[in-house]
């Protein structure tokens, strides 16, 4: 589906981030609700944010690879103020932001928020899974608490 979205449209849909030829696959993945993390076809290592080549072996054979998006919270903070975004109301309470150690990616972290959980429960070590919400009419990756 996102294959049909032109580069110009892609940039139009995510005006708040600088998209490049190196990161366009990652953001096209968002449109399909797929979290794509660059994996090196030669040495197998993952990296993020997307870079022009593999930082480990310098191979240019990178494969944007869909990951499950489960993991544990490595960093957690609660924003009492910050940039505006739909659905984020700092007056109603702090907004959690986390960096998650993604399972099966040799230590790559992905940063977003945690939804549907009281902010005081958003702490380091929390097991989470990936979900998608809508921001400005387009899919946006978030985490929610993983049960069990």
């Amino acid at each position, binding site marked *: 589906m996102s294959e049909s979205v032109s580069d110009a449209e892609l940039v139009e849909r995510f*005006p*708040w*981030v*600088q998209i490049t030829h190196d990161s366009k696959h990652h953001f096209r993945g968002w449109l399909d609700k797929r979290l794509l993390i660059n994996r090196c076809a030669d040495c197998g290592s993952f990296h*993020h*944010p997307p870079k022009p080549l593999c*930082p480990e072996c310098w191979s240019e054979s990178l494969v944007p690879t869909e990951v499950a998006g489960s993991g544990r919270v*490595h*960093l*957690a*903070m*609660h*924003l*009492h*103020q*910050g*940039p*505006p*975004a739909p659905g*984020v109301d700092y007056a109603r309470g*702090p*907004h959690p*932001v986390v*960096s998650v150690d993604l399972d099966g990616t040799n230590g*790559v*972290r992905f*940063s*977003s*928020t945690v939804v549907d959980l009281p902010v005081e429960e958003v*702490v*380091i*070590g929390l097991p989470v899974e990936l979900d998608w919400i809508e*921001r400005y009419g387009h899919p*946006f990756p978030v985490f929610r608490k993983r049960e069990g």
Partner: protein
Amino acid sequence: MRDEIAIVGLGSTEFRRDAGGISPAKLAAQASIAAIHDAGIAKGEIDGVVGALEPGAPRANQMSAILGLADVTHHSSPMPVAIFGLVDAMTAIFSGQCDTVLLYYAFTRAPWNSRSAAQDPFRGYLAGMMGGGLKAPPMPEWIDPASAYTAWAARYIHDYRVPRETFGRVALNMRANAARNPKAAMKTPLTMEAYLQARMIRHPLCMLDMDVPVDGADAFVLTTTEKAKKLTKSPVVVHAATAGMVGKNDEDQLPSLERHGQHVVVEALKQRSEVWIDDIDVFFPYDGFSIITLGWIENLGFAKPGQAGRWMQDNWDDARGCVMIDGRVPMNPHGGSLSEGASRGTGHLREAVTQLRGEAGDRQVPDASTALIGCGGFFFNSQGAVLKRL
């Protein structure tokens, strides 16, 4: 380059929450002229210009035009923080690109960190520089250097089981010292109770864990130690200086609190310096965020990981309300970025030189001859320097 380059001129404006109708270019020019006069040289002798890439500050070429300098053979505008510019100036002189460098920094409160600046029509253009020309503000979840320090502060609390008071003690140290510095922006006494009640910005860090935006400027004149000896009897020289970072320096991808830029700096500095932490008379850990100061205390070896709070407590001088290491060595006697003002470390560098010259007045460390600066944070701007009086 050990001891080969000297700082022979210092110039500085006051650091104010609002400098009124003065442009950053004028502040930079005032500090630069003061530094050139202080060095006792003619402006024609300046043949190198290094100015930090601060929002609103004039670039080296603009500064050269403002001051009407003669021909210049080295100029650059390195990114903040302070030691990048210092190292660039040093290497330019040492390699013969030029003989005498004017190094300057100007700081401007910006619309995104100051309410009054947001209402200043002459600062409106700065707003566009923050977003890098993007059409919409970043998402709250986007990790930038500023928010990342908070995230790693949370990790520090988690890993080492310390209370917020550990961070508060950093803020208290800076404020008590600022009271002895006429240039400082924040001199109102601070208590731990007030720290704990201060406005939370990004939990676990509050307003008092973050440096104070100010208008102001610092400038330095550097030349060879050989030439410096003709200008002054006891020049202050750069004994060692370095930058440092790890490959994985994207803010949220950093290996850990126990492996980042500060560790690289410490290893490099230790190799290049003949003196180390037991030999110094004044200590300058960067404090753009309080967590950075805890990092320097531990990574330089004053305290074990997670023990900086305990170490500050053990070295606390109750009468002065601040750290005095072994009852002798103060930590940021000028008040640091948290209380003198957000100078990206130039305040630390200027105070180090001032102390080594014996010109620090009420806050002078008796007979100070060696200073250690741990500048910058964890990601891409960690740096360090050892300064000595010859």
